[in-house]
């Protein structure tokens, strides 16, 4: 309990990090819908995209299927009921014609953000003036886009209703590269590596998760194979090297063609922060954790079992969110299930920590999902009704009702008043 943690911290019996870890785990595992802070206006449609800026963790952008974009100020006072305010926004149909599929902040400062839309465009916005800076015509519906959090190359990777991945360059404001090897009709999820600026992962309707090195001519490094399961190093070296040769030879080899990552459309991806593991989900209602330590061709599927609650049947890109790196060990995975719940798993063990139920009676699906920066323990989710919900840790004690507690000794007060009255009479 906190008191003994505080005692051991101040006396030096334990490292202060012990209190921190225990407290953060407690908070993440008691997430509830905030009773104090709420978003007053709703999108008239599904809230697909949420993004919190990386610089101050202060501004959140929401984008919905109503094609509206709103910027919220997350600084809020506690104590009283707090309405989050929209500080700026782009009205419906002004910026994008159709719904927004994804929004990302420029990783290095919050003067710019990028939005992808079903109107077949990706747009770059100046946050200050709220003006469109660039517009990229993709030609098909944009399902997802991503910008590398570390790279200096300013490439936005775009997953659209097209088997090829488009890389668009913000510097030259033109399309830079096409990465083709996906065999299905669409690419549904895309994520840059958090550690390697040239590495990209994508998931498509062909049921594969592919890793790309954009510097290579045959950019596709590998296809993650769900059959390559973790077994303690038995493969002989000869077999190993042949496998490697096979997989890197060409993406069109038959061995490559059969490989599947999911037995369905891959529609969600997230890298673990060390860039050595990745989580994917697909319409086969599975979540898989992949070990990406080179070579990628063996021992990739770690067979973590996430249990029977995972529901994922829609093709749309799912926002998989991880808790910030140093907040919890192992990291937590927030999975918006089709039932409307957000499932909280320990990502490396698959253990279900908590089930965040959005509502009991109606089937509201959670679409947009974002975790505010490290140590905030605030999860924002946008659902199919257009609401944005803040999830925060349960409070240690609820605030008693102001008025009542101030008057909690009524008998004495009455006596005092009588006495006062008597005094007055004496005058």
């Amino acid at each position, binding site marked *: 309990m*906190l008191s003994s943690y505080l005692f051991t911290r101040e006396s*030096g019996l334990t490292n202060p990090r012990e209190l921190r870890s225990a407290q953060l785990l407690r908070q993440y595992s008691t997430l509830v819908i905030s009773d104090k802070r709420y978003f007053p206006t709703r999108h008239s449609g599904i809230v697909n995209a949420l993004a919190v800026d990386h610089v101050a963790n202060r501004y959140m952008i929401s984008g919905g299927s109503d094609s509206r974009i709103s910027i919220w100020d997350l600084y809020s006072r506690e104590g009283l009921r707090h309405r989050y305010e929209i500080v700026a926004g782009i009205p419906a149909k002004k910026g994008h014609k159709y719904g927004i599929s994804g929004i990302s902040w420029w990783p290095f400062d919050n003067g710019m953000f990028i939005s992808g839309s079903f109107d077949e465009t990706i747009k770059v916005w100046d946050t200050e003036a709220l003006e469109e800076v660039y517009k990229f015509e993709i030609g098909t519906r944009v399902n997802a886009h991503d910008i590398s959090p570390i790279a200096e190359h300013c490439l936005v990777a775009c997953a659209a209703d097209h088997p090829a991945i488009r890389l668009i360059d913000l510097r030259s404001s033109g399309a830079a590269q096409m990465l083709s090897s996906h065999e299905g009709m669409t690419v549904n999820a895309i994520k840059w590596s958090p550690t390697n600026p040239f590495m990209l992962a994508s998931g498509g309707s062909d049921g594969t998760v592919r890793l790309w090195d954009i510097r290579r001519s045959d950019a596709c490094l590998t296809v993650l194979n769900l059959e390559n399961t973790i077994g303690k190093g038995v493969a002989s070296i000869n077999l190993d090297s042949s496998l490697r040769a096979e997989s890197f030879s060409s993406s069109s080899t038959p061995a490559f063609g059969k490989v599947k990552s999911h037995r369905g459309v891959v529609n969600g991806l997230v890298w673990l922060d060390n860039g050595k593991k990745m989580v994917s989900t697909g319409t086969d209602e599975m979540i898989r954790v992949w070990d990406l330590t080179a070579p990628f061709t063996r021992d990739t599927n770690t067979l973590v079992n996430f249990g029977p609650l995972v529901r994922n049947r829609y093709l749309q890109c799912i926002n998989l969110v991880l808790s910030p790196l140093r907040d919890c060990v192992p990291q937590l995975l927030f999975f918006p299930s089709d039932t409307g719940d957000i499932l909280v798993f320990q990502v490396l063990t698959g253990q279900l920590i908590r089930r965040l139920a959005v509502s009991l009676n109606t089937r509201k699906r959670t679409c947009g999902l974002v975790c505010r920066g490290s140590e905030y323990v605030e999860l924002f989710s946008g659902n199919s009704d257009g609401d944005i919900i803040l999830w925060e840790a349960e409070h240690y004690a609820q605030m008693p009702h102001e008025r009542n507690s101030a008057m909690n000794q009524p008998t004495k007060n009455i006596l005092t008043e009588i006495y006062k009255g008597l005094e007055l009479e004496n005058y």
Partner: protein
Amino acid sequence: MSYAVSIHKPSSVRHAVCTDLIAPGVYSLVLARPASIDVYAIQSSSLSLQYSLPVNGTITSLLTFKPTVSSTSWLFVLTEDCIGFTLSYKDGHLVTEQVSTDLDERFLPDTDTEHIAIMDPQFRAILLHTYKSSLTYIPLVQAPTSNKKRVLKSPGAAGTNCFQVTGTLYPARRLPIEELIIISIIFLENVERPTIAVLYRDGQHARHVKVYEVNAMGNALEEVKGSGLRNVDQGASLLMPFPPSAGGFFLLGEQLLTYFPPTNSKDPKPKKIPFNGPINFCAWACIDESGKRFLLGDELGQIYILQVRLACDSDTQSVLDWKIENIGETSIPTTLTYLGSGFFFVTSHFSPSTLFYLSPEEPHVQTVQVIPNLAPITDFQLVDRENTIDIIACSGGFKSGSLRIIRSGIGVDALAEIAGIQGVTGLWTFDNDIVVASFVENTMVVKCDPESGIFEELPGWWHIVPNEPTIEMAQYGAKGVHINRSSVTTVDTTNGEIISRYQSQQISVAAVTAQAIIIANSLTELVVLSWDLTIISKLTLHDEISCITATEDLCVVGLWNEVRASLYSLPDLNRVSYTEDLSGGNVRSLKISTLDSIQEPILFLGMADGTLHSYHLSPSTAMDGELTEHKITLLGTQPVTLYSLKNSIFAVSSHPSMIFGHAKKITISSVNVQSPTALAMCKDTSIADDADSSNVLIFATDDMITYGVIDQLMSTHVQTLELKETARRLTIMTPAAGVIGLITLKTELDSYSGDEIINCFVKIVDSSLFEVVDSFALEENEMAESITSGFFDGTEYLVVGTGFAADREEYTKGRILVFEVTNEKRLSLVLQNELHGGIYALCEVKGNLVCAVNAIVRLCTISTNLVTGSLDFNLQCGFRSPVMAITLSTYENYVLVGDLMKSVALLQVRKVSSTDGVEYMFHEVARYYEPMWMTDVEILDEKTSIGTEAEGNIVVFQREEMTGMKNSSFIQKNDEDPLLEIISSMRVGEVVNRIRRITKQSTDISVADPVVTPQAYYATRDGAIYLYGQISSQHINNLINLQSNLSKIVKSAGELKISSYRAFSNQRRKLLEPVRFVDGDFIEQFLELSQLEKEQTVLGANGGINLNLTVGQVTGIVEDLKRLR
């Protein structure tokens, strides 16, 4: 612009090694404090500090190893930032051999425990546990190449002695490990490949032991099957390797000692023998290399000896059985180190680190030498005294828990001690180390040899009558005078013959000047004698004379029944004037002295209640009685006795002080010695090495006479009240109440279940006697969390906040206890009120109580009920802190709330008039929005406040009417949303537990325009106290540039940069350098540089900035800063 300097350096010692660092075969004890490495020479029966190396980093581990290429051992040091380096001792210095920077890993989460570093017994590798789910393996020998053939050719090559420990740290490898919560790791002895045993805890709080071998490539761990043990003792916390004679290892549990034999032995089954527990072992040391005897220390500070019986089986030995025996008591150990020949050293976090001797006779454990320690300081308060500030601190823990008065003052370093002389009431010294000591009934003349402490009596010297006490002695030129109760005797000092003698009745006090001898005869008669002992003048006063002092032309006399002193001209004894009526009872001691830098002589009057008055005398005072610049100072609580020193005055009240002149002002400073009963300046002594012997004192305390030299530098002096339980918080009541209130926590071990029983108490300590006068026990399971005192409804109360701990859950119930301290200094509970949560913090704001009840900060009023006369407790407004409000600070009507996790919020208490009368409400003035784990907060003034953060950082907040964020001004913010902005930040490197602002600006006595204005003190869990100050605007650039220039000149151990050491750093955010913060301890290193280096620093060599000052100017500034302490 902020400045921080240590008043007391961190004194907790967590690591110690005994090694032949300096020369082959010569062992030294090396201690690692948080930011320094101290090398102690082991002498026959004591330790002496030989070398101290400051380290720009928080040291988390210290290891030693002996490379085959070197004749002496080296050290390996690991810092909090995961930088490891090796040190060797060369030419009187510790030299950095190699720095290993590849230990730091950005993407791995830090462990929740302290770092663990272990060394393979054959020095093949170092293993670190600094990250969760990973071990760092640093090979010290070249790993066998991956070439298969060579490995095949020499199987087990790594195990034989063909390796060379060159002292190189080879590139580190990460060894993934499944276990998340590792409690203890050791390397095993007598194994082929480096093998570790791991004690770990799983998610269900069960503890297990596993043994791993590092594989041949040195890049993975392979579990040694069949040698671990699942579900070991719940309280097991320590593994202990057995020496190579038998190998294997011990697991120390609470009730059970388990021996794990080596895997290759015949019977590898763990062997368990229970002992009479529960004992929570926390440290061990091996006494002899064969492994027959071990020292074990437990958390209560008991020391045990483990005797192992070995079975000799052909050429191998195996452990047969063992027994544990309690042999005595020590400090609470963090490590035990056996130094050989019966001596062992206990490093301690909670108690002083101590050298002990294992004696064959009772008592078996004998204290030999104590290295003082203040850690952990959990709370402190400041008490203003004239020119100095006392820090009263809760320090130490458990059985070493204590309350301490820490006072910085002038130091008197003891040069020599002469023991065995008791009851000295007066001391005089003369040439050739002759000391005259007066006792209540007699006088002794001795010739001392201070070097050896031997003294020899000189009967008949100056014809002093031995069976009478001496009142006064003096020597002017070749003439000496000796005054006792019945006579005044003058002697020729060249041959010691009596010149003349004046017989009298009842001399009580006397004063001697070069011209005259003034005595008080028959209690009331004032007589002035010439040196020929003829009466010059006489005056009978109306009361008994208590004290006299005189100059050439002026005599000042104090009477027992008067609250003033009278001035008489000399030699004719005309009364010139009186002083005004003085506060503090009658005059007990008088001295006239000239002080440095003050032209006029000054008259000091020491009063009966500890007050000191002073007047400036003018040359004409003897004529017109003019007294100017009256000053009053409270020195203590006992009558003041004054002694003249050269250009200064030594005053003794309840504790001693020095009065000297500095920058034309009278400066009073505490002296860090026990109150002497008599004191004299040494005239001429052989003891002082330097020619200037004017600083040498001789003084008598209860049972000895000490020669000491005055160290003009301020040092710290600590007075201790042992409580034998952990003091957690304290509050200081007004002088009228005269007590210190504190809450304590007492832990006991239930002898049956082994569970900890915790009892909390409220105690009051008499602030002048410094002893506990009353204690109030809290209920079972009730934890005392906070204490404050203040005037509520016109009466001073002591308020305690508690919480009820039930089944390890968070507090759902707590009490506020209001005590009145009676005139007899007893606690009387006048009010108690239950609240829905633990009360983590309390403070008083304008006569109202503010309490932090779990996450809610509430304002309460305490008022007297007009009908019943009892106290009423009313909850008023509340404010909800994001997670848990754990600390509060107030300033006028502001309240600063420190949250456990979501930083700080500044509130203002506002009065609202409503129909029901006056009501209060909290208005949130400003807030810092980013998460920060606060340990304490303090408001300095309306704009500025300081906060300290759990991972050892200090930040300065400033309130600003901000409009938007600086780096994103895209949004028009409304101006009603002010932010707290961090304007400076620095890493302290230790967890800061408490900050207290300095309310009275009393330290700026000397300089009109100080470089740094002290504003607050802060204290850490490692026992350090720091002074925080504000740098005056004109010196900001100089100091900042000096700091950066200096970092380019000063060589640091392990090439650690001061800028990265002092840069704010926690799990969320790491900065590159301190922000608008100057580290005073670092700046002071300037004074220790050579002239050339000083010049380079000032000119900004190695890419610094030219300061455009001379070396002298910079030295002056730094010396001024040094005086801040």
